[in-house]
């Protein structure tokens, strides 16, 4: 699936990353009680933190005393309600076996081993950062709760903005150095450095969102977010950046650390001898990994090695998989599931390759059409609503996607109770489309069957996309839309060119998908607030009656690709952003979803509330296969390799012995509508 669902990202990928970025270090961490959770206990008295940073880093901290603070254990509020995730359920399988090698692939040789900076966000990064690095506290993938990671306990302060963390005294980097609270100071120094050439991180971790970090003793720290939020714990859960590894960041950072693997608190590391230039990179399990026996890390990260081979041609990847040289291949694309590896193909029938469809529950990526409301005709709500009725997604799903997908209902599906319970997407209907277009003055059809208005203008729009592989989808939509009297011209571009056009807001209708990070509640400010639509604000943007002024300038490089700008909507989004209580957030969120549905700038396409994978029978899984909030089969590393089964299968391939075929659907997390 990695190569298949190639969602465009910039900001969005970075968002998911965040969830994997942050730990702190405390110098000379003394051994304390190493309890594995349980009832909150009194904080042990520990030494005050002494900074041993180099001059440059120290002066960076000193320049911002409001942000970087060092206090004493006595300053920790005594009325904190410490949590340690002990009420959450373990999700790994006790049957898991350690050992073996997982053979997987990546589409291109990684251009760097850095976690940040230019070229760092390639597809290889997931192996070394996204699904490997540990952060302070992790979101539990089966519930709305959290489980301990680098911090063994945490507590939300009375202001609901500050979160206190107590580090696990066992926490170590892969190079054996302990994780110190000061590594979390260093995290901000690192992420704010201009030398890492990562403006998005520079911006995200600046003073606007993060208000303070305080070290109380060698094991306790607190981080303060700019506002109270129900999910503030995950907002401030960052990863430690090993100060002892970098000491300071200078202009040579990119060059010096291009191929240097940053010591990690996670289970897998990249050793220099395992980088086989241009061919493969093998990740090995950190010897005596510190979290090996921890309650929520136990029985996960099972293979001793993960061998990531570079295979550039997708067709070759699939052939290697069929030969058994790669252990798995994504089957989410209908062509793979139905055509290339159908249930009656020999490897499946003989039981060598298993096929699994797993229903997960994550925020639905917004695959759909973004209608540019600043363009002539498209600024008319009736035309937009008519376009919704003119798109035959049901037929596309039936004929192109083999009926595998579901229709996406709103721009915020998959957020549990935060998603709207009743708003339903507009269905394909020639009559309803005609009624809507007629309201905008398009009544008469020309000889070509396309509607025209009184002055003879044809109802014709261009859909731009960077997704060549969905050309067939758009071709079918185009034919169907003609039935409703709209002409759709298709502009199929290269991936980057397609998104560039959308980012520059030069499209009429843009087709594509944006990934959403797994969060508690949806975001509206980025895609629908006028701040992200036009350069003008307030009275310069709106007339007294709330309509848009003329001569306003679209703002490039934001996620508001629908150019939605509506004064009432802006107010509502502001309230939503300021809301601190989950019920209030839910209520306002529903109101926003309803309004945006009426506004009709975003045209939802499909949702895929599952993923599918084919794997060789030596890859083993927990009884219920995977966790609810997994995006992909390997994200939470709950699988394991059974070397005996591998030998058995390879012998069977030669002898012709067969096993019962396994084609399974796990729908325990399927939403019932």
């Amino acid at each position: 699936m990695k190569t298949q669902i190639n969602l465009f990202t910039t900001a969005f990928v970075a968002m998911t990353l965040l969830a994997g970025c942050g730990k702190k270090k405390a110098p000379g961490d003394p051994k304390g009680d190493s309890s594995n959770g349980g009832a909150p206990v009194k904080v042990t008295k520990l030494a005050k933190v002494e900074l041993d940073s180099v001059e440059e880093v120290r002066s960076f901290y000193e320049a911002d005393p409001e942000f970087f603070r060092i206090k004493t254990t006595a300053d920790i509020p005594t009325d904190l309600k410490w949590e340690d995730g002990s009420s959450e359920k373990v999700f790994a399988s006790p049957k898991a076996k350690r050992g073996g090698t997982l053979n997987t692939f990546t589409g291109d040789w990684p251009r760097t081993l850095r976690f940040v900076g230019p070229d760092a966000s390639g597809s290889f990064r997931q192996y070394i950062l996204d699904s490997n690095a540990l952060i302070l506290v992790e979101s539990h993938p089966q519930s709305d709760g959290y489980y301990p990671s680098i911090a063994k306990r945490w507590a939300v302060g009375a202001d609901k903005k500050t979160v206190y963390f107590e580090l696990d005294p066992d926490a170590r980097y892969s190079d054996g150095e302990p994780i110190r609270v000061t590594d979390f100071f260093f995290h901000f120094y690192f992420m704010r450095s201009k030398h890492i050439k990562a403006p998005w991180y520079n911006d995200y971790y600046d003073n606007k969102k993060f208000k303070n970090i305080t070290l109380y003793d060698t094991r306790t720290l607190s981080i303060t977010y700019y506002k109270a939020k129900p999910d503030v714990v995950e907002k401030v859960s960052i990863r430690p950046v090993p100060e002892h590894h970098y000491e300071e960041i200078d202009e040579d950072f990119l060059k010096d650390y291009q191929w240097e693997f940053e010591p990690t608190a996670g289970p897998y590391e990249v050793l220099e001898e395992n980088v086989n230039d241009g061919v493969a990179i093998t990740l090995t399990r950190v010897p005596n990994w510190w979290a090996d026996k921890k309650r929520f890390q136990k029985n996960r990260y099972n293979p001793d090695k993960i061998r990531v081979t570079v295979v550039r041609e997708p067709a070759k990847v699939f052939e290697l998989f069929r030969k058994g040289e790669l252990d798995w291949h994504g089957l989410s694309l209908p062509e793979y599931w139905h055509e290339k590896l159908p249930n009656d193909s020999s490897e499946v029938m003989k039981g060598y390759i298993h096929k699994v469809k797993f229903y997960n529950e994550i925020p639905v990526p917004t695959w759909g059409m973004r209608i540019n409301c600043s363009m002539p005709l498209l600024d008319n709500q009736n035309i937009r609503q008519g376009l919704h009725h003119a798109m035959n997604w049901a037929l596309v799903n039936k004929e192109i996607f083999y009926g595998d997908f579901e229709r996406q209902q709103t721009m915020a599906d998959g957020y549990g109770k935060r998603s709207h319970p009743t708003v339903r997407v507009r269905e394909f209907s020639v009559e309803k489309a005609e009624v809507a277009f007629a309201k905008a003055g398009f009544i008469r059809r020309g000889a070509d069957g396309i509607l025209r208005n009184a002055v003879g203008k044809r109802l014709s729009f261009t859909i731009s996309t960077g997704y060549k592989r969905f050309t067939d989808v758009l071709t079918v939509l185009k034919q169907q839309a003609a039935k409703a009297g709209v002409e759709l011209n298709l502009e199929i571009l290269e991936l980057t060119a397609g998104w560039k056009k959308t980012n520059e807001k030069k499209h009429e209708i843009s087709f594509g998908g944006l990934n959403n990070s797994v969060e508690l509640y949806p975001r509206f400010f980025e895609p629908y607030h006028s701040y992200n639509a036009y350069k003008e604000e307030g009275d310069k943007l709106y007339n007294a009656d709330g309509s848009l002024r003329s001569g306003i300038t679209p703002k490039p490089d934001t996620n508001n690709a629908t150019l939605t700008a509506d004064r009432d909507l802006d107010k509502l989004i502001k309230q939503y952003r300021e809301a601190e209580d989950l019920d209030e957030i839910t209520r306002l969120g529903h109101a926003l979803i309803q309004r945006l549905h009426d506004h009709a700038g975003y045209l939802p396409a499909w949702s895929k509330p599952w993923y599918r994978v084919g794997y060789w029978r030596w890859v083993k899984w927990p009884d219920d296969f995977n966790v609810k909030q997994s995006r992909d089969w390997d994200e939470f590393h709950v699988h394991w390799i059974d070397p005996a089964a591998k030998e058995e299968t390879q012998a069977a391939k030669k002898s012709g012995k067969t096993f019962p075929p396994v084609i399974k659907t796990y729908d325990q997390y399927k939403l019932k509508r």
Partner: protein
Amino acid sequence: MHWKLNPITARKLKRFRSIRRGYWSFLLLGGSLLVSLFGELLVNDQALVVRHNGQWFFPAVADSYPIKWIYTPKEPRTGEFFGEARDKTGQSYSGLVNYRLLKKTWKAAGRESWLIMPLIPHGPDGNTFSEGVKKLSAPSGEHKHFLGTDGAGRDIAARMFYGFRIVMLFALGFTLMVFLIGSTVGCLMGYFGGKVDLLGLRLVEIWANIPFLYMVMIMVSVVPSKVGMTTRVLLLLFIMVVFSWTSMTYYMRASTYKEKARDYVAAAQLLGAGPLRIVFTHLLPNTVSTLVTFLPFTVAVAISSVTALDFLNFGLPEGTPSWGHQLRLGQEYIREKPWIIGSALTAIFLVLTMVTFIGEAVREAFDPKKFSTYE
């Protein structure tokens, strides 16, 4: 105006006719091209003849060139126009009518109205999902999908047919332009000789060393996205010509060198003819045999280049019926749907073989050794 073939040319043509496989290839290919120009009458989802309520309609004729450019019906031929309020899926039938379905409906209802569909009742862009045909379906006579359907449910035979027309017209246009530029530059270099020749030849050599395929790929990928489909095709043609005209210059330059030493050129010069007049009215017609022998091979190069570029996604715009796109689809399903790549490869093989046969025959017929006489 009365004109007679030059006896030498007449002999050359006679010789060409006597080389049978070349001659037959020429007739077959030329005939196919001619037929494809009126392809809308053969392969189309528009009916050839419709008889309804005492009126005659000829939608396929109206859809064909050049009638399309001069005539459009006043009102749309919608389902409602032919008396059908709802289509098969229950939607209001205010969009253009589907003649295939209309035929079935009329037949089933025993109406007086009737219509005749073309041989292959599919256009290059329509699908037959509503008639129960799946995408990527195997060839079937029942729905007249003789080569099956592609990933968007479109008829592969229809796309191959229109792909042929596009690639042939493209190749002919390419050849014409390459010859025009190449022979002009070559003749001028040969005629003027000296410094013009020396400098011109160096420039041509430099230009010829720019790798054609890479340049076309680079140039095509930077075409701004707002450029329309037709312009993109013409632009592709132009870019290909710009990087391909050089090979002709060498031959034309040599022939011109040879010809200009002959007496009729001196005579023309004495009569006061200017260089352009001499080059275009005297030299060019006399070097035409060189040109003609290269013609079929240039066509073959054009066909294979544009197909290769399409295959690599740098050729004709997505959505245009094209053999290269068909090859790409076929390669994707080489294991599961071998007929897709099979039909594309067969078509390319047949056309290129015929072009090569023609080329051989032309070269044989125009061989100067057989006809040149030197005083």
